[in-house]
């Protein structure tokens, strides 16, 4: 557990100054006045698989211009929550709102149409196709006019646009847009996947463990990329196990435990130990927003029996 609060990027610090921060927000509790607009909100989401409850009436909210980290133990149901938000699974109950309007995604395609892009842990890349082709996989650019009627692709425009986008994101290690993705390093591949999300994700970008497979230097580049996307105005949901990283980049931390949101905290106002405590259930957030030890005899205990 190295790194920590002192390591925050400049962009995050500016945000910290601009955004009024409550000390610690209780899960689903009142939020302070003057907070930024909520881009993506979910209320009372439920997903059951037979007897197994993957999402247990969970809430979620993502604000404009922030990086929201989602943390939780293995099996806490982070993936199910994220899948519900990205259209990969359809919740049994609950409401999802995008910019205040209720939405019901039946497929990842529908979520993508609405401007929600997901960078999957597997990256979803075709390794033998080049970078430009991967960036436009599933939504190619066609030629204008008669050649468009033949459904002819516009290879040149895709290559140029891809190169422009990679430049705009500062992904400069990629030398040739015609390189096949399989020949790229892990970090470069991740960068291309992030770039694809950034190109098309107009509302929200969700990233599932984007640095899990990367080395220190490559992780750093991806984190810079996330900060750059946030600074361009698109909020990012970051699922991560890496606490120092979460504390470095996130504006708020959504803590998921036993299928629901147990707390939302701000990394500036609490410690990694406290977040881990909340993840594991050793600590809890009281109504007035302070973190205390979990009283084993208290009514909260029922939350711990899965």
């Amino acid at each position, binding site marked *: 557990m190295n790194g920590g609060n002192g390591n925050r990027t400049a962009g995050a610090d500016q945000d910290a100054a601009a955004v009024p921060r409550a000390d610690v927000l209780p899960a689903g509790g009142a939020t302070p006045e003057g907070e930024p607009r909520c881009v993506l909100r979910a209320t009372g989401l439920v997903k059951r698989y037979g007897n197994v409850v993957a999402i247990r009436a969970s809430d979620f909210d993502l604000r404009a211009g922030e990086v929201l980290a989602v943390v939780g133990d293995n099996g806490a149901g982070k993936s199910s929550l994220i899948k519900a938000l990205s259209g990969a699974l359809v919740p049994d109950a609950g409401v999802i709102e995008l910019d205040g309007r209720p939405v019901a995604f039946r*497929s*990842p*395609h529908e979520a*993508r149409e609405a401007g929600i892009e*997901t960078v*999957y842990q*597997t*990256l*979803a*890349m*075709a*390794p*033998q*196709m080049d970078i430009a*082709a991967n960036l436009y*996989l*599933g*939504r*190619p650019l*066609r030629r204008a006019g008669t050649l468009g009627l*033949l*459904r*002819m*692709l516009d*290879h040149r425009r895709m*290559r*140029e646009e*891809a*190169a*422009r986008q*990679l430049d705009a994101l*500062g*992904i*400069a*290690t*990629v*030398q*040739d*847009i*015609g390189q*096949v993705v*399989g*020949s790229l390093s892990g970090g470069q591949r991740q960068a291309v996947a992030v770039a694809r999300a950034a190109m098309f994700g107009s509302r929200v970008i969700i990233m599932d463990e984007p640095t899990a497979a990367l080395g220190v*230097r490559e992780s*750093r*580049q991806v984190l*810079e990329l996330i900060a750059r996307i946030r600074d361009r105005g698109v909020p990012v949901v970051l699922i991560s196990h890496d606490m120092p990283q979460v504390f470095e980049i996130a504006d708020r931390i959504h803590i998921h435990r036993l299928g629901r949101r147990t707390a939302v905290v701000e990394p500036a106002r609490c410690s990694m130990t406290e977040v881990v405590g909340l993840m594991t259930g050793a600590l809890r957030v009281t109504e007035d927003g302070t973190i205390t030890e979990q009283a084993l005899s208290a009514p909260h205990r029922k939350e711990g029996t899965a």
Partner: protein
Amino acid sequence: MSALDVRADLAAPTRGRRPSLLTWTARSTTAGPLAALVLAVVVFSLTTDTFLTLDNGSLVVEQVLVTGTLAMGQTLVILTAGIDLANAMIMVLGTLVMARLAGGGGLPGLLALLVGAALCAALGAVSGTLVTRLKLPPFIVTLGLLSVLTAVSQLYADGESFAVTSSTLTALGHRSYLFGRIEVTTGMAVLAVMVAGLWFALTQTAWGRNVRAVGDDAEATRLTGVNTRRTVLSVYVIAGLVYAVGAWQALGRIPNADPNAFQTGNLDSITAVVIGGTSLFGGRGGVPGTILGTLVVTVLANGLTQAGIDSLYQQVATGVLVIAAVAVDRLVRGRAV
């Protein structure tokens, strides 16, 4: 460590441009079979007097027509990381149905051709549906279909073969002479048009890109919003139509529909596809390579015959080429992934 440092060592000028000839050669799957074809042609031209003649050239191309057409359909299927063991038998059943309908059935040739084509497409749809809906391995699906269709062909033909008299059904065998000297058949033009059409569809349209992407990584392609089931199903149906063209080509070459013909057509087409540089693992390759691959196999057989070498050695040479081609593909893929 920062993006700025990284920016310093990039070679920006190459970005967004077309790849150079050198990088094309390194990345291309057609460079290998092209080199093999040129080598074979040069060797046989130097070692025999009869190889490099206009007539022999026409003969080689004519010998390519049926296997080349089967291999076109096979290429589509293999690009999706599938394989089609039933292709030649679908084609043979197509020739039988066309010949019987136009002969004893008394249908006009064109109608018989269309019914045969519809049958081939429907059989492709059967394979495609089993592969996409029941998620069965294409090898097993088409092996089963091959077995069923072999029996169906024999039952339908009832031990006979059918001579074809309809001029529509034999149209592709029509000969003419370019510049009064070069013998060509209508079938050659049809093959050329088909290769061009499939090349266009595979490289210049979103459909072709999706076909390759599915073969490369089906799950990744699905996550990017491509309807992978529909893509794969369309590949099997279009391959079925291509086999129907193969049936038409076959009747043009030999105006007789025989249930025992093209027994090894499926394996010959796979051989041509693999030598043509298309990866059996899916996603890499295309129709120009397959035509080169078919030409390599045919030139090898033709040239070795002209050189007076036993046809068994032709099989040895083809076998070695197949294994070499897959080994090269393995190495290339191993490096890329």
